[in-house]
């Protein structure tokens, strides 16, 4: 909406506005001083009584947590930036760090077992098959990648210290994530299918059990779930579908279809600026509700169409875009069998043509969203 409606004959002219501004400014300044003076003692009391002890506890807990996770003092303050390759995706995957410690109550503050023999296993994924996998020096940081067999499943791993990979250097993390992806791809090629795990999934030894025993124990416990997941995803790949709309185009369409808005636009002409402003508010209100219901019905239609062409659809979060002319309407991950891949492409093309939306179709990805 334009704001160039500086009018001389209005209720307030420029001079009066200046005055109003000055008065408002003075009131503001006074109020701020007043509030600050009145509340100064209360604030400092509050900060001393409540804030500081809470802060202290929070700081000490954080430090305890951090030290519990990272024995190496050099890494104590480093926080791991999200993987640059597929950041949102990785963050959303459950079963992140150190599986065995979850639920087994490693109390914060107690340092993890260390020393010779206390090594962990970095888990890339689970694949079906019985032919051992061995990729010499091709894992993260050139580690030897090998497989641990449980029944007809293999866990693809490399030996590593029992702590997460962390670095403040984005490039280093990027290389790690890329190496992780590469192994996933290679396993997928060799075994036909792989159930990928998120970057930095590390199995820790616990008590007198080695990491390998922990992993085997976990695979035995979860065997049925792992099996059914692999059956579900076999012969399928994941694709990302993001649908965007242009607010101005949609606004025009809604306006042209809504007679009330047309009437208001007529009404607005040849009126005083005050009246024009008020009528414009009404138009914007109408437009907003119109666009909301339009967007809702579009999402409904698109979801139905996409769902029909996929084995499974997962709705992801809408990302706020900075661009004004392209807003995200829908974001989803689709599990698609190789035969259905063309079908989905056709459906998306229809969506683009029929509804005037733009579609971003990415993939194939490892099936992170469905394991």
């Amino acid at each position, binding site marked *: 909406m334009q704001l160039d409606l500086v009018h001389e004959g209005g209720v307030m002219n420029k001079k009066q506005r200046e005055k109003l501004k000055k008065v408002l400014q003075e009131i503001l300044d006074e109020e701020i001083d007043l509030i600050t003076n009145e509340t100064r003692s209360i604030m400092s009391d509050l*900060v001393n009584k409540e804030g500081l002890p809470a802060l202290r506890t929070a700081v000490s807990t954080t430090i305890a947590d951090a030290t519990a996770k990272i024995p190496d003092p050099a890494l104590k303050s480093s926080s791991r930036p999200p993987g640059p390759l597929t950041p949102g995706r990785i963050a959303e995957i459950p079963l992140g760090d150190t599986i065995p410690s979850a639920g087994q109550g490693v109390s914060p503050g107690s340092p993890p077992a260390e020393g010779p023999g206390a090594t962990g296993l970095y888990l890339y994924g689970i694949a079906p098959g019985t032919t051992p996998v061995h990729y010499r020096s091709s894992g993260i940081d050139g580690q030897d990648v090998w497989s641990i067999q449980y029944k007809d499943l293999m866990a693809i791993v490399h030996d590593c210290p029992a702590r997460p990979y962390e670095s403040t250097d984005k490039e280093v993390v990027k290389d790690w994530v890329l190496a992780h992806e590469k192994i996933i791809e290679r396993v997928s090629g060799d075994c036909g299918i792989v159930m990928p795990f998120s970057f930095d999934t590390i199995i820790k030894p616990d008590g007198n059990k080695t990491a390998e025993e922990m992993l085997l124990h976990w695979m035995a416990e979860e065997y049925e779930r792992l099996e059914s997941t692999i059956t579900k995803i076999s012969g399928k790949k994941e694709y990302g579908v993001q649908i965007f709309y242009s607010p101005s185009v949609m606004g025009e369409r809604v306006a042209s279809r809504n007679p009330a808005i047309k009437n208001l636009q007529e009404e607005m002409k040849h009126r005083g600026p005050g009246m024009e402003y008020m009528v414009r508010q009404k138009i914007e209100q109408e437009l907003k509700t119109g666009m909301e219901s339009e967007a809702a019905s579009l999402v409904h239609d698109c979801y139905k169409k996409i769902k029909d062409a996929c084995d499974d659809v997962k709705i992801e979060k809408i990302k706020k875009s900075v661009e004004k002319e392209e807003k995200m309407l829908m974001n989803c991950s689709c599990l698609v069998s190789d035969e259905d891949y063309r079908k989905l492409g056709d459906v998306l093309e229809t969506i683009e043509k029929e509804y005037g939306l733009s579609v971003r179709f990415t993939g194939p990805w490892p099936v992170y969203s469905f394991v």
Partner: protein
Amino acid sequence: MIEIDEKNLKQGVLGLVLALVEIIEDTLRIQAVRRMDSGLLTDDEIERLGSALLDLKIAIGEIKEEQGITETVKEIREELDDVVNDVVDRIGNPERWTDQQVPCS
């Protein structure tokens, strides 16, 4: 020891005040449109109401511009939106009441 930068504080407080003024302005505007819809106002009254609201909007915009807090006010309003969304979400979903006590009997 907590250090407070006075200039920063003033910016923050001014931003907060203006964010509240903007919210009040929104409310006034919504109410004004309702009054207009009720059909009880004459054209002349609507014109005056609209002009006053328009002037208020312009004045707020100028103050924000002068103080260089346009961005701050926007951020505060977004944060407030998040807080309100959170509260509404909590109240609307009884299963979440156990997470945190909500003053609601």
